[in-house]
C-alpha cells in the first residue's frame, strides 16, 4: 500500500509542480508545494519502513491482479531503507534547489526531479523485470534532463549527450534481455522467474511452465543485465559518463543522483544475483564465474577510482570519483557470500549518499555565504567536515565507520583478505583527496580566488537544512556507536531480505500490506 502510495505521490507531485509552474507566476507557491510533496513522500517512506519492519515485507498488486499476471510491488527491508534514503535526499535536494537555483530554472527542475524519484522508487519496489526496464528508462531520461537543465553550459550538453546515448544503448540491452527472458520463461515476474530458474519443471498459476530451454537464455540475459547495472552505477570500465555528469550537473541534481539514481546499479545487481538467478539456479556455475569477475572488477574499480579521487582538487571531481569508489566497495560487499558484508555494502551506499549530500549542501551554502561570517556559513564548514569524515569513515561516531567495519567483518569471515585490504586502502587513498580539499576550503583563507555569485538571504532554509543534515549524519553514527546491536538487527533483516525462498513465497501468497 505504502510503496504504491509513494510512487503515486511523486508522480502526482511532478504533474502538480509542472502545472503550477506554468499556470501561476507565484514561485513561493511552487516552492511550498514542492517541499510539501517531498515531505509527504518522506513521511510515506518512513511509514513503509515501519511497515516492512513489522511485517517483514510490504507488497502491492496494481489493479488487483495476482502475480505473475499483473505488476506487483515488493518492498522488503532493503528496498524500503533505500527508498527512505532517496526520499530524504529528495527533500534535501528540493530545499537545495530553493537555495541555489534561479527562479526561472526551478520550475523546470521540480517536475523532472519528482519523476526521477518516482522512477527510482519504482525500480526499488518492482517485482517485474519489464517494469524494471520502464523504470530504468524513466531514471535515465530524467537524469539526462536534470544534467542538461542549464542548457547554456556546453559541457553540460556534452555530458548529457554522452550519458544519454550510452545510457539508452545500455538500457536497450536490458529490454533485449527482458525479451529473451519472456521468450524463454514465458513470464516477467521476478519471483516466477526465480522459481523456474531453480526448478525448471515448476508450474505456476497464470504462466504455467517454462517455454523454451532456459539455460542459454538465462546466461545471456544475466551477462547483459550485469553489464547494464554496472553502467548504471558507474563502476570502473563503464564509468566514463559519471565524472562528466557530476562536473556539469547542478548541485541539487547531484544530491539526487548520488543518493538515488546511481545506487540503482548496485541494488539491481543484488536483486539479480540474489533473487532472480539465485545460488541454486540452473546456471549456478556461470553465476559463480560472473561473481568472481564482478569481485575482480569491483576491486580494480575501487583502487583506480580511489587513486583518481586523490588527484582531484575540485569538489565535483572528488564527489564523482569518490562515488565510484564507494559504490565499487558497496558492490564488493553486496556480491559477497557473507550476509554481514551485504548489510555493510547496503549501509555503505547510504553512507556515501549522506556524505556526498553533506559535502555538496555544505559547499553550496558555504560558497553562497562565504563573504558573510554568519552562523550558517560556519555551520556549513562543520557540515563539510562531517561529510568528509563520514566518507573517510574511520571514526566511530560517523556511520561510515560502521559500514566499513561491517564489510571488513563480513570479508574476514568469508576469508576474503583482498576485500578487507580493498576497503581500507581505497578509503585511505580517497582520504588524500578529501583532506586536501578540506584543508584548502576550510582552513585556508582564499576568498579572493572566487568570484562572488550571490549572497542572497534564505537564512532560515540554510540553517534548517544544515542542522537537519548534521543531526541525521551524527545521529545515525552516534546511534550505531551507542547501540551496536542495531547492526545485528540490520544484518538479520538484510539476510532475510536476500533469501530467495522467502521472496518467492511472499510473492505468490501475496496480500496487500
Amino acid at each position, binding site marked *: 500500500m505504502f510503496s504504491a502510495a509513494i510512487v503515486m505521490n511523486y508522480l502526482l507531485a511532478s504533474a502538480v509542480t509542472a502545472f503550477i509552474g506554468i499556470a501561476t507566476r507565484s514561485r513561493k507557491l511552487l516552492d511550498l508545494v514542492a517541499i510539501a510533496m517531498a515531505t509527504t513522500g518522506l513521511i510515506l517512506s518512513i511509514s513503509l519502513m515501519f511497515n516492512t519492519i513489522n511485517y517483514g515485507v510490504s507488497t502491492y498488486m496494481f489493479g488487483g491482479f495476482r502475480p505473475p499476471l499483473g505488476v506487483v510491488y515488493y518492498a522488503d527491508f532493503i528496498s524500503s531503507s533505500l527508498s527512505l534514503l532517496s526520499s530524504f535526499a529528495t527533500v534535501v535536494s528540493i530545499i537545495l534547489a530553493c537555495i541555489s537555483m534561479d527562479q526561472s530554472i526551478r520550475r523546470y527542475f521540480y517536475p523532472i526531479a519528482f519523476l526521477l524519484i518516482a522512477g527510482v522508487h519504482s525500480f526499488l519496489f518492482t517485482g517485474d523485470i519489464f517494469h524494471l526496464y520502464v523504470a530504468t528508462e524513466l531514471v535515465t531520461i530524467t537524469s539526462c534532463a536534470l544534467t542538461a537543465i542549464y542548457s547554456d553550459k556546453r559541457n553540460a550538453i556534452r555530458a548529457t549527450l554522452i550519458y544519454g546515448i550510452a545510457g539508452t544503448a545500455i538500457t536497450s540491452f536490458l529490454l533485449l534481455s527482458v525479451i529473451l527472458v519472456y521468450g524463454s520463461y514465458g513470464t516477467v515476474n521476478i519471483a516466477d522467474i526465480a522459481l523456474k530458474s531453480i526448478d525448471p519443471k515448476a508450474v505456476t498459476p497464470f504462466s504455467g511452465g517454462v517455454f523454451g530451454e532456459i539455460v542459454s537464455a538465462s546466461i545471456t540475459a544475466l551477462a547483459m543485465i550485469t553489464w547494464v547495472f554496472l553502467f548504471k552505477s558507474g563502476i570502473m570500465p563503464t564509468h566514463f559518463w559519471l565524472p562528466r555528469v557530476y562536473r556539469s550537473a547542478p548541485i541539487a541534481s547531484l544530491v539526487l543522483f548520488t543518493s538515488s539514481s546511481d545506487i540503482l546499479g548496485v541494488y539491481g545487481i543484488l536483486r539479480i544475483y540474489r533473487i532472480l538467478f539465485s545460488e541454486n539456479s540452473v546456471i549456478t556455475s556461470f553465476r559463480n564465474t560472473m561473481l568472481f569477475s564482478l569481485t575482480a572488477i569491483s576491486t580494480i574499480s575501487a583502487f583506480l577510482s580511489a587513486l583518481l579521487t*586523490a588527484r582531484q582538487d575540485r569538489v565535483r571531481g572528488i564527489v564523482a570519483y569518490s562515488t565510484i569508489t564507494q559504490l565499487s566497495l558497496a558492490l564488493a560487499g553486496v556480491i559477497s557470500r557473507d550476509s554481514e558484508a551485504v548489510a555493510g555494502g547496503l549501509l555503505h551506499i547510504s553512507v556515501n549518499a549522506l556524505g556526498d549530500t553533506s559535502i555538496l549542501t555544505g559547499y553550496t551554502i558555504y560558497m553562497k555565504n562565504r563573504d558573510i561570517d554568519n552562523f550558517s556559513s560556519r555551520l556549513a564548514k562543520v557540515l563539510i567536515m562531517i561529510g568528509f*569524515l563520514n566518507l573517510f569513515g*574511520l*571514526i*566511530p561516531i560517523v556511520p561510515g565507520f*560502521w559500514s*566499513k*567495519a561491517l564489510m*571488513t*567483518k563480513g570479508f*574476514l*569471515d568469508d576469508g576474503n*583478505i583482498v576485500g*578487507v*585490504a580493498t*576497503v*581500507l*586502502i581505497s*578509503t*585511505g*587513498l580517497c*582520504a*588524500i583527496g578529501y*583532506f*586536501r580539499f578540506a*584543508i584548502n576550503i576550510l*582552513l*585556508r583563507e582564499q576568498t579572493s580566488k572566487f568570484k562572488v555569485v550571490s549572497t542572497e538571504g534564505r537564512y532560515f532554509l540554510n540553517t534548517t537544512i544544515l542542522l537537519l543534515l548534521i543531526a541525521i549524519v551524527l545521529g545515525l553514527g552516534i546511534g550505531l556507536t551507542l547501540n*551496536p*546491536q542495531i*547492526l*545485528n538487527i540490520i544484518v538479520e533483516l538484510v539476510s532475510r531480505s536476500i533469501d530467495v525462498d522467502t521472496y518467492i513465497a511472499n510473492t505468490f501468497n501475496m496480500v496487500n500490506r
Partner: protein
Amino acid sequence: MYIEVEEWSASIPVAVSLITLGNVVLFRVPIVGCVLRSLGFLSIALLIKGLDFFSETLLITSSIVGIALAFYTYAYSKTKYGGIGLVSLIDIFLLSMVMLFRAKIFIEFITFWLLTELIAFFLIAYDYIAKEDVNPLRASIKYLVFSMIPTDLSLFILLAMTGFEEAFVTPITSLELRITNPVILIIVLLGFFSKAAVIPLHFWLPDAHSVAPSPASALLSGIMVKMGVYGLYLVANQVIDEVLTATTIILFGGLTAIYGAIQASIQQDIKRLLAYSTTSETGILSIALGLYILSKDPIFITASALYSIAHALYKAFMFMDSGYIEIAIHTRNINELGFIYRLSAIQSTSVLMSITSYLGMPPSIGFVAKLILFTEISKYLSNSYAYPAALTILILKTIISIIYNTVYLKAHFGSKSLTTSPKPIPSREDKYLKTSCITVSVYSYIITLPLVILLMYSEPISTKFKALDILYPLILSLTAISLTLYLLIYIVIKYRGS
C-alpha cells in the same frame, strides 16, 4: 606488588577541563593559560591510571612532555605563526593519545587511535595550512598512505575479529583473539610496523617528522611512534604464532635500528637527523618486544617501557631544541650552525644533559633502561640465536648513535661563528622556550628515582632483577652529583661563550 589504585572517576574531566580552560584564557593572559594547561597535564600523571606498567609509563611520559610543551607550544606558535592556532591542536593531539594509553575497552582504544591519526595528519600538514608550503602536504599524504592506511587495516581486522558488541564490553587486557592465519597476522603486524616506522613501511617518517611544527614533531617522535609499539604489545598478548611473530619483529626491527642510525649519521638537516634517529629507536623497542614474545619474560616489557621514556624525553627535548634553533637562526642545516652556545648557554647545556642521559650516563633514565636491557639479554644469550643477534644490533646501534649525537652537538658547539645577527625573539617567548627545554632535560635525570622505586615495588620485576636494590642508594647521590656537574658546565659555557 604493583600498587593497585582505583582511578578517580572525575580524573579525566579534571584534566580536560583544566586544559580547555587554559586554552580559553590563553588569548588574554598567556601565563595563566600556560600554567593551567601544565596543571592539566600534570593531573594526567597524578590522577589517570594506566592498565599496566607499560601504559602507565607512557601516560607519565605524555604528562611530562605535555607539561613542558604547555609553555613551549605557546611561545613557538606565537613566534613562528603569529597566532596560537597550533596550541589547541597540539593539546587535543596529546589528550587523544593519553586517552588511547588509558583505554580500558577495545572500542575506546580504536576510537582514540583513529582520532590521534587524523589529528596527526593535520599537524603534519600544518605548514601547508598556515604558510601554503607544499612539502608538508606531500609529507602528510605520504603519512596517510603509508602509515595511516596499514594501521587502520590492522585495527579493523582486530575489530572485526573481536566482534562489534564484544568490542564495547571486552577489556583490552582480557582480549583473546586467535590470529591463526599467517597472512592476517603479517598484515596486522605490518600495520603496527607502519605506525612505529619499522622497515618495510618506514620511509614516511623522516619526511613527516621533519616538516611538522617542532612541538608536533616532539609529540610525533616522542609519543606517537610508541603507539605502534603499544599496538605490537597488544598483538603480543593474543593467541599467535610466537616464533613467526618474534622472528618477523626482531628481523625488521634490527634492520630498522641499523638503517635508521646510519641514515641519521649522514643527514645535514637537524630535524631529519632526529627523525631518522627515531626510526632507529623504534627498531630497538620492537626488538625488545620481539624478545618478550620469544621469552615471555615481562622484564623485556619493563625495559621497553623505560627505554620509551628515555627516548621520549630525549626526542621531545631535541625537537624542541631544533625548533628553537629554527626560530632563532632560520636554518636547520648543520653546516651553517655551530655557534648556539654563544647565543644561549642554557640551551647548549640542556642539549648536553639530554644527549648524555640518552647515551646512558649513570643516574639518568636512559642508563637504567639500557642496563636492564643489556643484562637481561645477556641472561638469555644461550637460549636462541635471536638473543646474540639482538645484542649485536643493540651494541652496533649504540655506537652509531654516539656518532650522530656528536654530529648534532656540532650544531651547538661547532667552530663556526655567527655570520648574521639572529632574529630577536620576544623576551617572554624566549623565556618560555628555554624554560621548557631545560625542564625536559632535567626531568630525564630526576625521573629515575621515582621510577626505580615504582619498579622495586612491582612484584614480578623486583624478584628477578636484583640489581635494583644496589642501584637505589646510588641513584640519589648520583643525581645530585650530576646535576651539580651540569651547573658547572653551564657556567663554563656561559663564560666561554661571552
